[in-house]
């Protein structure tokens, strides 16, 4: 479980996060949604300790992160899997080596055990034949899937994904969403996902935090998000023509 209290973060005097409090529970897929530029990535990077923040606390299963020593922080981070918005694959390594990397660094497995595990996770993200490719030779969507494979390969306790299915086709998107949900439930881990994809919201939004201009504008789940009359949320949810149609049909059906 991750608890965030009153998080403030600014860049060069401009406040980007203006006091955000929320909790992310174990075994649930937690979603952070909001428009581009609303502060989702900055929020996630603060959670990971990649950005320093001026105020607020972040606790990982009760341990307040900023109070840990450098080595203790690294130990917590050893249990984190992260999918960056831009994938952040190591471009000096092949795809298989990228996925194997956390295993090589943190486990004492034999070469063949590691290879089996890599095959297994690459299969789960539908990448059976890409082992030997370099990241630069893979498409954007493939890179995303490799990043997901790398994040989950060492059974993390905390999984963070910054827009895991941007750049993926709808079908693969669904596969990835399902995979993240499955892993979250199977291993009872704490998962936090940044997204602005309505499909993901419907499918895996067990808890949803809505950010707008650096503030938490709304909090709920995929059960409540379509019922709320919070203007900010409805504005976001029904911004696409497709969602407008869905809503129209729903209203007509009820009449």
């Amino acid at each position, binding site marked *: 479980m991750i608890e965030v209290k009153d998080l403030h973060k600014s860049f060069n005097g401009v406040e980007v996060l203006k006091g955000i409090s929320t909790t992310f529970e174990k075994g649930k897929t937690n979603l952070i949604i909001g428009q581009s530029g609303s502060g989702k990535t900055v929020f996630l990077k603060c959670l990971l300790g990649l950005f320093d923040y001026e105020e607020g606390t972040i606790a990982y299963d009760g341990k307040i992160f900023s109070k840990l020593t*450098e080595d203790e922080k*690294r130990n917590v981070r050893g249990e*984190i899997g992260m999918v960056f918005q*831009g994938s952040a694959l190591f*471009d000096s390594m092949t795809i298989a080596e990228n996925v194997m990397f956390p295993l090589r*660094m943190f486990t004492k497995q034999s070469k063949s055990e590691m290879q089996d595990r890599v095959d297994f996770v690459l299969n789960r993200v539908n990448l059976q034949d890409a082992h030997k490719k370099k990241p630069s030779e893979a498409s954007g969507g493939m890179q995303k899937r490799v990043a997901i494979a790398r994040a989950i390969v060492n059974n993390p306790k905390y999984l963070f994904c910054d827009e895991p299915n941007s750049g993926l086709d709808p079908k693969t998107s669904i596969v990835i969403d399902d995979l993240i949900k499955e892993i979250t439930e199977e291993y009872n881990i704490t998962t936090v996902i940044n997204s602005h994809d309505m499909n993901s919201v419907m499918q895996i939004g067990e808890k949803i935090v809505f950010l707008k201009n650096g503030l938490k504008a709304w909090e709920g789940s995929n059960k409540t998000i379509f019922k709320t009359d919070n203007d900010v949320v409805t504005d976001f949810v029904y911004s696409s023509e497709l969602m407008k149609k869905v809503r129209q049909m729903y209203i007509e059906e009820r009449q």
Partner: protein
Amino acid sequence: MTYLHNIGAYFLMIAEMFRKPTKWSVMKNLILKDVDDLIIGSLGIIAFISFFVGGVITIQTALNIDNPLIPKYLVGFATRQSVILEFAPTFTSIIMAGKVGSFITSSIGTMRVTEQIDALEVMGINSLNYLVFPKTVALMLYPFAISIGMFLGILGGMAACVYGGFSSLEDYIYGIQTDFIPFHITYAFIKTFVFAFVLATIPAFHGYYMKGGALEVGKASTTSFVWTSVVIILLNYFLTQMLLS
């Protein structure tokens, strides 16, 4: 103020580089790869430059001492001294600041802008140890490359001397053995070790702490070259003052 801040940050970086070391089985491969990239990959250019600059030094010296009272073997002597004392350790290091230095800055800088360093940190890896330490260790073999440069510089001088007819082979060989002071070699290698450390860490500093995007990677490489050269030249001055006078 920013200079002071940067100097402080540089020394903190070096201290951090030795903390929480990466697993040896992984580190070993990183070092071997960096030896290949940084040392083996530079041998060609070092050999080429040394040979020809050695030749030019010889020609210049020979042309400048056409006084019949000065013995011919002095050409060999002068070439040996310039190559061992300054040319091979210092001049070559400035060229390496361009070649090896900008490679280090741009490769680490690219990892910074594409969040690969963040990815390492998030996994709980000491990215400074992972990225900079193997390069520093690899460059400890740099004096070996420089000794090849010294040898080829003197050989190039010999070729130019004999081929250009400035003095006989015997005179040249006599010259390069005259008044040989072994401490000069020690001095040259002490310098080279210090330069090797500078060549690994200053470009790494500029790459690691850079901000921005691809454009800034290019700028960081340029600044890193300037600073590496300036520091090498200054250290050269102080080390010479300390060790030789």
